[in-house]
């Protein structure tokens, strides 16, 4: 009985995701195909060659026919082919890039929550000490620093100064090997991506922790002789977690959008890099494809976050 409600809820949400993805990609598709000029504007092409290219990609047909074909393709999971890198199919490309972005994003999320909660809890249980002031002011600084600024400082430290200091023995090489990179290559971009949000989490954790540790059941736990660590970790932290879970949704969206910038700095072959590249190349099919992928990712991430609520707070049920 309990599970049927949950399943129904998941079904509804999935339907909503499909609808959103269709709507978003339609808007972007139509908007982008109404733009004046074409992808193939280039002085080296003669009019006849241009016509042939337009014909080859079906761009000379009426917009509604192109849109119909796009929708049919989308329903089969086919996003068409690239205009610039001729013959490259977009679906497998974007799928692989989504995995890369998800990998970096997941690690960033881990950093964000781990670091943020650790700092927040420490600041709360040492309220009004130098540790608290240090962490709180670090959080304000972190909150005001765009992720590309954090990335720049990390690069200066790990790629430039570390190389000079160790005489080139040990340093961070900007770049990416293979499809998924190595742990060393991922961790610095992931940290840059997560750090600004970690300070948001830290502020929130501190505030909710301060509220929780003043409550009666914490006093009860202490009074019955539980060690302080157990009181904090098992009793206080669990309830302090609830507000943090509620901002997970915006957090995931923030990390996804932040990855657009971070991937371009660190040369990570993910969705974000592709998105900017394809916009600059006017490879509009890929722009639509990547945006569609983003819409789907955000929808699924939000669904997962919403499914987390009842696990942490049993009062919530679907």
């Amino acid at each position, binding site marked *: 009985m309990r599970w049927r409600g949950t399943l129904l809820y998941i079904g509804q949400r999935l339907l909503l995701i499909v609808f*959103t993805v269709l709507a*978003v990609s339609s808007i*972007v598709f139509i*908007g*982008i195909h109404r*733009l*004046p000029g074409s992808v193939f504007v280039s002085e080296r092409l003669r009019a006849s060659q241009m016509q042939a290219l337009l014909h080859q990609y079906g761009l000379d047909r009426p917009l509604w026919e192109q849109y119909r074909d796009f929708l049919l393709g989308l329903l089969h999971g086919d996003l068409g082919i690239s205009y610039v890198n001729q013959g490259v199919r977009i679906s497998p490309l974007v799928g692989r890039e989504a995995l890369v972005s998800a990998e970096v994003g997941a690690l960033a999320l881990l950093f964000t929550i781990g670091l943020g909660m650790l700092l927040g809890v420490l600041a709360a249980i040492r309220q009004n000490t130098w540790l608290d002031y240090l962490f709180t002011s670090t959080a*304000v*600084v972190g*909150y*005001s*620093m*765009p992720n*590309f*600024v954090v990335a*720049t*400082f990390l*690069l*200066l430290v790990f*790629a*430039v100064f570390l190389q000079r200091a160790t005489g080139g023995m040990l340093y961070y090489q900007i770049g990416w090997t293979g499809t998924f990179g190595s742990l060393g290559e991922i961790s610095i971009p992931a940290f840059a991506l997560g750090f600004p949000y970690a300070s948001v989490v830290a*502020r929130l954790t501190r*505030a909710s922790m301060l509220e929780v540790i003043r409550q009666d059941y914490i006093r009860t736990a202490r009074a019955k002789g539980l060690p302080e660590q157990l009181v904090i970790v098992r009793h206080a932290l669990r309830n302090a977690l609830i507000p943090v879970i509620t901002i997970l949704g*915006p957090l995931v*969206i923030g990390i*996804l*959008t*932040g990855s*657009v*910038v971070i991937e*371009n*700095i660190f040369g990570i072959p993910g969705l974000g890099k592709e*998105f*900017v590249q394809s*916009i*600059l190349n006017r490879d509009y099919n890929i*722009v639509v494809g990547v*945006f569609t992928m*983003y*819409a789907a990712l*955000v*929808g699924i991430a*939000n669904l997962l976050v919403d499914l987390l609520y009842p696990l942490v707070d049993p009062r919530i049920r679907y």
Partner: protein
Amino acid sequence: MGGRPIAITTFIAEPMAQRRAGLWTDAWRRLRRNRLALVAATYLLGLVGVAILAVFWTPYSTTHQGIVLPYQGPTPAHPLGGDSLGRDVLSRLMEGAQISLLVGVGTQVVVLALGVPLGLLAGYFRSWLDAALSLLINIFYGVPDLLVALILIVLLGHSGLGQIIFAIAVTRWMDMARLVRGQAMSLREREFVEAARSCGSGTFKILFRHLLPNALGPIIVQATLGIPQAILFEAFLSFLGLGVQPPTPSWGSMAADGVQAIRISPHIVLAPTIALSVTLMAFNFVGDGLRDALDPRQRR
């Protein structure tokens, strides 16, 4: 509770005077005590001064190349050195301040123009209007804002300052609309609104003469905190090469240039990133200070 003797007159007169002071005098008194916010506000005033100065005068041209040696580090004549094309970094930083502030304030003007009337109407009338606005807000919260701004810039055929401001405002109006809606919803139940209605005030007058002034505090705080977000967005867009087009300098595009040369001359990337961070921080401090001053109950 020091041992300082207090004259009986101030003891009595002060609380009385305080009670008579209006919201704004009260807020100003509280804000003056917040030293961090004052320092930040002074910095921002200075920045506005620099931005206005940059309209008329910069030490060197912001677009002429080869004024300095490319990648030249700081020298007395060029305190922040030269960039990859031999342009003076300090001059470009000054003009960049102008762009950042224009985008930040311009975006908030659009956001106010969109969010305040929508929020007032939805909060006051409820019904289908509110349902429609809430749905719209939820849809906008569900899509990644930076990506929408990017796509909008493409669709608008990038990119003058106006397009950038519009694109950012479209992705940022919801916070304001939601806030004003909430304020209107709680204010409409208050007695003074009922009194105004029973006196025969028209809807327009109730919305803009009675509801709006009472919601002004939170609106000002929200608008102040929205400015750094908009500046950040512009920096993101320009960093990716989709914002302000070269050769016009923006802190974002200057940082993007600098990252390329991070190994040989880090000063090119440090100047705009530090300026950006300090400015964002200052706006956040002032916004937080205003929040504490205007609405002490909402202390976080």
